[in-house]
């Protein structure tokens, strides 16, 4: 980690987005994670995505659990409200927050210990409820803060830094998210920013439960030979099924793609996703096909990345509950309290 404070000076020529914000307006405090940590790259991708999407930082709520990954919301979006909750319980806190004000953008940041072990239940249930959120798991296969224990996403046969082999079968959060009805599912790699940034952007513009599993090597405890979550291993086995470009406001489509190699998906809010196919027959609108493909490639030792599934017409928890459009936290008394006359009538029915 670095102890140097970030300089407050800004270069006058820093690029600005439509809101007049610079990249710096989306940054947070200096990271206290280990130098080279994959998580810092994910924070950078989030910053980049929010900058490019012209999002107002204060309209984003960032929530996390406990662990190295859950510390990261301090390091991005310094003007956003943040909530560092309890271990494995970010999803329920985020669900409640979302119910209270449907107008904010909800970004949940978690890790593999937080979401695949102690919080597996909350992960599953927030996905199956269709909470409108972007749920990022910074997946390094190891408990970093407590110094190197295997996590539930560690592959069977993967070796710890001390040479101990993991015998437990791994939990694949991507397959689970697909099975549980997530309407946007992606996997990426912290070392591949060009793939990750558009995925985060598309997820932030998605209406419904968007889940991103980001393989994020732990330089301190899980980046050695024998680990299946090391930089080298993931680079060698990364099998991207597509490359994504996110177009806002229906911008004209660049015509430099060969026919049949690009798929266009228009999301609920008008965002157009350009998917450049890398795996010829991969269809990101086919949930069951995606599950099958993932299983096959996993057995072959490959790490499938890209936008794996998207349902652009998804509904969210508020749609299911049929709630009013106005955020709950803005109701005045008259909208909440039925009043004395109603009670008189009710009293009469209770005699």
């Amino acid at each position, binding site marked *: 980690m670095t102890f140097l404070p970030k300089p407050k000076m800004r270069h006058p020529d820093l690029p600005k987005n439509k809101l007049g914000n610079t990249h710096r307006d989306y940054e947070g405090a200096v990271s206290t994670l280990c130098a080279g940590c994959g998580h810092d790259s994910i924070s950078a991708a989030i910053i980049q995505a929010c900058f490019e999407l012209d999002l*107002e*930082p*204060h*309209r984003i*709520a960032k*929530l996390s659990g406990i662990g190295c990954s859950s510390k990261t*919301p*301090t390091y991005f979006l*310094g*003007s*956003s*409200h*943040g*909530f*560092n*909750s*309890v271990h494995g*319980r970010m*999803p*329920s*806190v*985020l*669900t*409640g*927050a979302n*119910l*209270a*004000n449907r*107008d*904010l953008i909800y970004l949940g940041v978690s890790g593999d210990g937080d979401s695949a072990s102690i919080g597996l*239940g*909350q992960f*599953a*249930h927030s996905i199956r*409820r269709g909470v409108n959120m972007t749920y990022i798991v910074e997946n390094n296969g190891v408990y970093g803060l407590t110094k190197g224990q295997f996590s539930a996403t560690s592959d069977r046969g993967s070796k710890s830094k001390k040479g101990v082999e993991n015998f437990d079968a791994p939990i694949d959060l991507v397959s689970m998210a697909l099975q549980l009805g997530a309407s946007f599912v992606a996997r990426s790699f912290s070392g591949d920013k060009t793939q990750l940034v558009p995925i985060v952007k598309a997820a932030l513009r998605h209406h419904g439960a968007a889940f991103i599993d980001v393989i994020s090597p732990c330089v301190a405890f899980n980046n050695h030979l024998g680990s299946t979550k090391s930089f080298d291993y993931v680079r060698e086995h990364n099998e991207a099924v597509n490359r994504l470009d996110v177009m806002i406001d229906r911008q004209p489509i660049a015509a430099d793609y060969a026919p049949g190699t690009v798929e266009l998906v228009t999301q609920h809010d008008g965002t157009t996703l350009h998917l450049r196919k890398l795996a010829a027959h991969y269809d990101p609108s086919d949930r069951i096909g995606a599950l099958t493909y993932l299983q096959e490639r996993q057995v072959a030792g490959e790490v499938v990345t890209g936008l794996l599934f998207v349902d652009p017409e998804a509904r969210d*928890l*508020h749609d299911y*509950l*049929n*709630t*009013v*459009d*106005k955020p*709950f*936290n*803005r*109701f005045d*008394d008259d*909208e*909440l*309290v*039925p*009043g*004395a006359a*109603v*009670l008189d009538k*009710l*009293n009469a029915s*209770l*005699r």
Partner: protein
Amino acid sequence: MPQPITSTNDFVVKFANVNGSGSASANQMFAKAILRMGVPVATRNIFPSNIQGLPTWFEVRVSESSHLGRRGGVDLMVAMNPQTWTADIASIDPGGYLFYDSTKPMPASKFRDDITIIGMPLTDICNRAYSDPRQRQLFKNIIYVGALSALLGIEPVEIQRLIGEQFKGKDKLIKPNLEAMHLGREYAQNHLTPIGLQLKRADAVGDRIFIDGNSASGLGAVYGGATVAAWYPITPSTSLAEAFGRYCRKYRHDAASGKGRYAIVQAEDELAAIGMVIGASWNGARAFTTTSGPGISLMQEFLGLAYFAEIPAVIFDVQRGGPSTGMPTRTQQSDIMSCAYASHGDTKHVLLLPGDPGECFEMGAQAFDLADRLQTPIFVMSDLDIGMNEWLCKPFAWDDKRRLDRGKVMSYEDLEAGKDFGRYLDVDGDGIPYRTYPGTHPARGSYFTRGTSKDRYAKYSEEGAVYADNMKRLLEKFDTAKSLVPEPVRRDAKQRTRLGVIYFGSTSAPMHEALETLDDQGIHLDAMRLRGFPFADAVMDFIADHEHVFVVEQNRDAQMRMLIVNEGGVDPAKLLPVLNFDGTPITARFIADEIARLLRARKIVTLREVAR
């Protein structure tokens, strides 16, 4: 044989049934008919954790003088369950009455010779009147209600009206039910004689309403402005969440769009339920969960977060018998300690102690104002007896001028005007800081909420002095709560006494009856009903004013007494526990007997004895 009990408008009827047999609605009709005659009743369901086939009881206390707690003892037993026959017969007071199904002959040894036995061949009557087995079962209940109406002097017109109300919309059921009622009534008129327990039309109910505490709490949450309810099914709190949903569907839908101004989520467990409540409250909505003891255990970690990060939350705890799964369908007041000091580390929580459904409504609404004002969890400590039984209580009232108190929240304008915002900064000297809702201002007022130690401006800090400063402020805030929670209610004896009694919650009604009984015996007690924690100074003054103070509660370990000793620095020897913890609601007779026994055992003389 002792003289058969004679009493008008003051007795106890107990129905022993098999659960799932349809007896509940018939028994409720019996009680409500009495109520409609202007005679107050209290009903208590004593039921198993089961859907069909196990014993269940329904106790009806009839009391023109409005003693609506459980009295103890049974004057008339309606014994419809062979499984519990022996114990049911044994529980009848000498001189009391037994009403039973005499279709099958029973040996004399199965009865008692000090009670009046009334046999009616119910099964036989049903078998002759109905061919469908389900009808035979259901109408049997109505038939015995009809027979009892003749024996006890219940006006049949009231039962007829109730049948009409109950089957409104299913009109073809009205006629057969009326016929069944008359079948029973006519049999009793022709073959049986009225008993010593009689009902006479009175005017003692007034404008009071008859409702269960869980419905009242759910309604209180609507009036308190709750918009988010997250819960996990657990007896005896489930019907509270259901009631909230019922009232929301009635009162919280936008007429134009048909959409709701509320969200109810059945969570995957109690941890998620309280997590959602905390998330919603953090974001400025009013949110609650409803649960019972096991749920409180599961929520402990989150409750510590809400305490330390200072997030409002309302928890309705409808207490049941613990520990562990304990007695899930029986009542207790045994979560006092686990709520008052919920979670690890140094914590203290605000408790509200409703004494009846009327207070469930009032405190249910007030809890949301307190949660926002104090920015901390507020527990509404109901129990199964209040929550799941219908009580007669004063009608619900609401002042339309009353505004919801959203507490200290900095607005966009405040922030824009440059007001200093420190999330954990005590600017008013009451220990309560200001908060902001997420998304309020583009550049000001955002902060990081966390369960870790932080300074007054919400910045992470592990410095000892910073941590201690924050923990001390939390104590000051708790002290502020003292003046905001419902005040205790003091009720002094007719004459000066050195004896006091402290009680709370569902103990209140039987306690009031016990005070009268003791008064008649020359034992005078000043009484104080607790309604909130932290304790008002008046509670400690009350204890100081008396030489001996009984603390009456429904748990084994005298938890409220423990809390008083701990928080008030009271000499434990001064507080004498009176404890009922068998899972059935505490009775007036038990309280009076136990207090009298303790006085004798400890050779404590009452003033009257001194005067002699």
